[in-house]
């Protein structure tokens, strides 16, 4: 043992270390393609199935539904927690006879208007922010002030300014979308690689053409995440706002559906309304945004899956 440590200590000294043994050189010819075992092999069916994200998520949803059903049956109190099947039944009834789809559409229509106006204002603000220094200051100050302010807190004010109805809803929606989208877009623009910016200017692009041809696609990953956050904020705000004053706005939306059924102690329908809210959220996230992601940033190699 002592001998071994002594040996390794000696090796540290270059003069006393033994030289590497001399070895013969050798040459070899690369093997012809055909004689390889595997160069490329299709994956097994199981491997291919588990690679599909939608399938994995579906499995997760089924699992959650099973847990829900099991717990509700065990609890056996439909006034507090109805079963999954009862909720599905209420959802079906709501769609067939209760005008749930009509109400969802009412909500969605208001939502799209607010979302659209919010995005439009956000693009104006960010274009101003990247072209002028005062614009940057305006954006930074305004987002710092208003982003933490919950949109729903503006509702009483909106009711006074715009009265009961769609206009107030759109106002709070714009507020919930605008700052999230503007902030993300602006930080996306700031993080565009200087090389790409120089390339764009090298082409002689300036002003709006430069923004549309270079900055927006280059910052698209950030813009998309801003749009997603904006969408989620808007959806939440809308349902909350409808719960508070859906009564008075003409036909009423999903929030109103939930509120009304709670008053009538139709708890499965309350759950059906909530389920609809979740369903629409899932649909937008997994169909609209993921498609948008797939045909843009994923395809361009700007985001890894």
């Amino acid at each position, binding site marked *: 043992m002592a001998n071994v440590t002594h040996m390794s200590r000696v090796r540290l000294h270059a003069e006393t270390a033994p030289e590497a043994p001399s070895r013969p050189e050798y040459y070899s010819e690369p093997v012809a393609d055909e004689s390889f075992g595997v160069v490329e092999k299709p994956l097994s069916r199981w491997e291919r199935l588990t690679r599909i994200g939608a399938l994995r998520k579906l499995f997760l949803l089924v699992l959650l539904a099973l847990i829900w059903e099991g717990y509700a049956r065990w609890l056996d109190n439909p006034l507090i927690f109805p079963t999954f099947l009862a909720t599905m039944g209420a959802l079906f009834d709501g769609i067939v006879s209760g005008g749930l789809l009509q109400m969802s559409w009412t909500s969605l229509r208001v939502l799209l208007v607010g979302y659209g106006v919010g995005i439009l204002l956000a693009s104006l603000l960010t274009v101003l922010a990247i072209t002028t220094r005062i614009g940057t200051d305006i954006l930074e100050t305004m987002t710092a002030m208003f982003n933490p302010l919950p949109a729903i807190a503006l509702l009483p004010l909106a009711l006074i300014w715009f009265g009961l109805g769609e206009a107030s809803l759109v106002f709070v929606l714009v507020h919930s979308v605008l700052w999230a989208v503007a902030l993300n877009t602006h930080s996306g623009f700031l993080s565009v*690689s200087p*090389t790409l910016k*120089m390339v764009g200017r*090298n*082409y*002689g692009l300036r002003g709006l053409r430069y923004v549309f*041809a270079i900055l927006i696609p280059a910052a698209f990953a950030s813009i998309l995440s801003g749009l997603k956050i904006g969408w989620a904020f808007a959806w939440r705000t809308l349902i909350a706002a409808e719960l508070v004053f859906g009564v008075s706005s003409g036909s009423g939306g999903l929030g109103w559906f939930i509120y009304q059924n709670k008053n009538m102690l139709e708890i499965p329908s309350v759950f059906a309304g909530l389920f609809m809210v979740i369903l629409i959220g899932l649909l937008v996230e997994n169909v609209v945004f993921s498609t948008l992601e797939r045909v843009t940033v994923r395809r*361009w190699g*700007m985001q890894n899956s």
Partner: protein
Amino acid sequence: MTLQSSAAALLEVDGVTLQYKTEAHLVTATYRVSFKVQSGDRFVLLGPSGCGKSTLLKAVGGYLTPTEGSIRLQGRTVDRPGPDRMMVFQEFDQLLPWKTIADNVAFPLLASGKYGRREAREKALEYIAKVNLSRFAEAYPHTLSGGMKQRVAIARGMAMEPAILLMDEPFAALDALTRRKMQDELLQLWDDTHFTVLFVTHSIPEAIRIGNRILLLSPHPGQVKAELNSLDRDNTDPQTHQALEDKINGILFADRVEEELEVHHG
């Protein structure tokens, strides 16, 4: 008299001092640098890092305004970036990731209004073929290797048929084997069309291989030390190559030896 001589040169850099500001300092990158590039030149700016050669190239590109002196291309003062001076950068991320290779090459042709959609595409495919990437015309940049991306960038620059092609150490980030191959390809392309190129490098062998004329710059700030003719392309004699390398080494690093001597004396 001066007007006539400036009409002869394609690019005229005249007493250019470049300064830029960092957080705490005003840095002078080059001091009163002058040189003239003739049409068809493969003009190399060579110097150690910190000699302001890249800054100088960016000024020719129109990204920086000289604090002193002037830069004229075909008699017109350079005051902004433009497609008559296409740049090839060192970075691999210079291709637009959201466009295919063909679209990347065609885009400046369209954006500058030089060609219509169909001609731009034809032109793009022609130059992509020149750099042997026809198979990848419809691929996206992130699927290509570094060397291939640089070839696309060169094709993009050349397809515009600019007055001058500006190359900022385009091969510096490549491995030695790919680099050697790319140098040969660039020279072959030059044999084809005899474009004018202003090439920045810090590698002396690369400067000798690529250039027909070499401007040597000293560091901190960049000042002209010499302007040399490179060797003939068909001169493959390693001894003359070595002699020129040694000569350039001597010119570029003469100061350093003197400084060391001074220290010794002190």
